[in-house]
């Protein structure tokens, strides 16, 4: 096979360095701003805790039933809190015109998408890390299961990959708060179904062979939608 000349290799390396530098700058900026304001995380966290409190009092369940509803309650909580975070994260860019500021920079625009997505994912993980032990205490259910952690990881990636893309679309409209869940939930339905089934399987100790198709679905969804977002983000943010 013919090897690329050194000039082409170095230009590829430069482009990759620029991409990573822009991506890490966007992630750093989101984390630093959130560390100061704590607007996004506190809203997500309070909302998530309220949801599991409400479910705890609304569903008076025996121990056996709890195990079957746990995954559903968890994913509803993550989805609602996640939507709140996605909306806020993109609104922060739009309100002061910062999205234009980002789009004016000479970087590959997919670096902006991945930077925002990684920031959103970090916020989502923080909420999940806090919600899991609280849920365990309230519902008296052991959630420290490596399989469940894997499902939460894969499900969150799929949810944030699509959510970041759609929130950058919804933020351009006047009805962004309402529009995002309307756009997002139908598209991420496969993630929720697969994540609930796989989580439930791990919590109830079902055989791996039965859980495997749901895990595969999650991985395929993550790969496809990350690739789609990579390809279309530039067109979505441009007028």
């Amino acid at each position, binding site marked *: 096979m013919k090897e690329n000349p050194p000039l082409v290799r170095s230009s590829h390396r430069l482009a990759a360095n620029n991409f990573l*530098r822009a991506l890490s700058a966007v992630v750093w900026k989101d984390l630093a*701003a959130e560390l100061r304001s704590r607007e996004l995380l506190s809203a997500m966290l309070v909302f998530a805790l309220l949801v599991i409190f409400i479910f705890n009092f609304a569903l008076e369940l025996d121990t056996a039933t709890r195990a079957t509803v746990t995954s559903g309650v968890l994913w509803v909580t993550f989805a609602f809190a996640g939507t709140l975070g996605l909306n806020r994260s993109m609104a922060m860019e739009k309100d002061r015109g910062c999205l234009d500021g980002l789009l004016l920079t000479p970087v590959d625009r997919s670096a902006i998408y991945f930077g925002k997505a990684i920031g959103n994912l970090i916020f989502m993980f923080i909420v999940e890390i806090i919600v899991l032990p609280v849920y365990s205490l309230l519902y008296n259910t052991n959630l420290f299961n490596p399989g469940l952690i894997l499902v939460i990881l894969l499900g969150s990636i799929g949810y944030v990959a699509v959510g970041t893309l759609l929130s950058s679309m919804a933020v351009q409209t006047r009805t962004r708060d309402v529009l995002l869940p309307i756009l997002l939930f139908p598209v991420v339905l496969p993630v929720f179904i697969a994540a609930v089934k796989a989580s439930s399987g791990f919590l109830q100790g079902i055989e791996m062979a039965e859980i495997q198709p749901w895990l595969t679905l999650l991985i395929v969804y993550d790969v496809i939608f990350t690739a789609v977002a990579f390809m279309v983000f530039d067109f979505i943010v*441009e*007028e």
Partner: protein
Amino acid sequence: MIEVRKLVKRFGLKNVLRGLDFHVEPGEFVALLGPNGAGKTTFLRILASLSRPTLGEVHIAGYRLPAQSAAVRRRLGVVSHLPLLYGDLTAEENLRFYGRMYAVDHLDQRASEVLELVGLNARRRDLVRTFSRGMQQRLAIGRAVLHDPEVMLFDEPHTGLDQDASAMLDKVLREVAAMGRTVVMTSHDLARAADLASRFDVLSRGVIVASVQRRDIQPDGLLSFYRQAIQDA
């Protein structure tokens, strides 16, 4: 430096720009004047590569839009009436963030130079949300010149500023222009435009209807020139 031919921009059925021609020489400071809805902001957004032209050709510094938009963006500094700054970051952090996005060399030194230029060195560690509107706009200019662009676009930079803040902004604008940069500024404020620009173009209903050099007009003649241009359009 900027060459625009037969530029058309449509939003649905509405033609905002209708075959606009525009040419700017290197080092010129052009004030783009016109009534509300004339298409000034739309035109500037196309030059800034934030919006795609429907038809026509746009070249900036020898690069064509939108095909070579990354190369154009590297050579552009843009200031609008919104500061494009993060309120929860300090002035210095904002510049460092944008400096990383533009791959600015010797970023610490450059950020200090820019803060000095816009008179905000003493407030470098303060959060931008604690700044007055005038200070935010000065920092916005600092953000726009950070990567030393050849072309500067200003979209109504005086909007919402009081007299003192506007005067300070003018001082910074003059310093930026004195560095030999090509500047295009939209404005409703004829007096300020007359004070700053070397050429005045009037945009009405999506086309340039009149253009005059500063040397060809009396200092108090801009208002009558503008009114006549709008009337004839």
